[in-house]
């Protein structure tokens, strides 16, 4: 698979479901937005539920992209092209998912910290969280502690996610977590942190619940921690 190679014409409608989904994984990998739109529509026409299309075709495809990005096989441009293609499919699925009234996994407030305007990673995480069933409140970039506090007050999320790309801005995560502790709000939500220069050690040092090395891990971690928290709450009550 190569985003820059000439893609062979494939009649998506002629493929059986499994082959079509596999082809969509390839097309997502190659950042072929039109093909992802077409594949999404075909699966829906065949009676697939929007959640199944989302999980089996799009989220799984992006998970593969994420693995190859982590392993240095794909780079930022290819990941962005894939994300752009997935965004198209999500555009079709989002209203259908809303219609089904399926219960959300939870709510996430996410934003890049003050002084930092980088949002590629954050946007990927937002997309994967949405794919994992979360409602995502995206605060955008360059967020001071007040913006986080205001959003937490308004949305009462299960998770706060903070992102930074710069080594000069990542310490601001500690400022936000410190403010939560000071106000007695730290345990009201799970705190996840991520960004290229971060690591697990940093996540622990700033007092986050977890460091997420990529978007797929962020989605998996978010699900696991929310479920664990709910189980603990149920046991306690």
């Amino acid at each position, binding site marked *: 698979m190569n985003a820059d190679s000439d893609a062979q014409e494939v009649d998506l409608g002629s493929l059986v479901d499994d082959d079509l989904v596999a082809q969509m994984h390839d097309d997502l990998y190659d950042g072929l937005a039109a093909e992802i739109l077409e594949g999404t529509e075909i699966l829906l026409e065949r009676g697939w539920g929007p959640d199944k299309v989302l999980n089996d075709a799009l989220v799984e495809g992006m998970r593969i992209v994420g693995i190859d990005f982590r392993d240095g096989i794909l780079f930022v*441009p290819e990941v962005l*092209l894939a994300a752009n293609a997935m965004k198209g499919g999500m555009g079709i699925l989002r209203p259908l998912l809303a219609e089904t009234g399926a219960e959300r996994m939870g709510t996430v407030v996410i934003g890049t910290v003050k002084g*930092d*305007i980088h949002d590629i990673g954050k946007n990927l995480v937002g997309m994967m969280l949405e794919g994992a069933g979360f409602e995502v409140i995206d605060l955008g970039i360059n967020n001071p502690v007040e913006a986080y506090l205001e959003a937490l007050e308004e949305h009462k999320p299960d998770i706060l996610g903070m992102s930074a790309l710069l*080594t000069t801005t*990542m310490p601001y995560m500690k400022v936000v977590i410190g403010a939560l502790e000071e106000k007695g709000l730290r345990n009201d939500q799970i705190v996840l942190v991520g960004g*290229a220069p971060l*690591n697990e050690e940093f996540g622990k040092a700033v007092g986050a619940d977890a460091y997420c090395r990529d978007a797929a891990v962020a989605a998996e971690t978010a699900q696991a921690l929310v479920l664990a928290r709910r189980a603990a709450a149920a046991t306690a009550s």
Partner: protein
Amino acid sequence: MQPLPQLLDEEHVFEAERPEVLILACGAIAREVLAVIELNGWTHVTVRCLPGKLHSTPAKIAPAVDAKLRELKGDYERIFVAYADCGTAGELDKVLDVHGVERLPGAHCYGFFAGNDAWQIMHDAEPATFYLTDFLARHFDSLVVKSLKLDRHPELKPLIFGNYKRLVYLAQTDNPDLVERARKAADYLGVTFEQRRTGYGELLPSLERFANA
């Protein structure tokens, strides 16, 4: 100064007349390091440059420096690493602690050229700033446009650079060609353009302290 070889992709050695000490430098600041050496007339300082393109992949810097320091251990009386933290988030410092070697002050080349405190003030005033040095102005096309595949996928430009508002060219030299390149880079990104003449900034005293010790 002699014409320099390709510093973006390749490693190079600039051997001193009587090599005693070594500066292991980022290829992206090789010209400036060599200029400081020439300015001071040092004949005992060898410069070895790692590829300048490592600037775009910070995770590779610490392992590359570590490998080079291991290779060159014992070949020189002293070694200095002409990198700042450069996005390694402390990983480079861990390597340097093991080898007992010092580096340039601050977080990145923008900082030590502009002066780390001055850079922080400038950045706090407008975080949505894209910075160029002489090297980055010279190689903007290959290091930014081509490496991010924007030449083939212009639709990615707003996704990658949509949040930037200004470009500040931190100029080490007075070079009208580089000013023009930097201005074109700002136009390409669709942001305002500013130029600040920094000279060699904190690079000069840092290298002087090392070479004259």
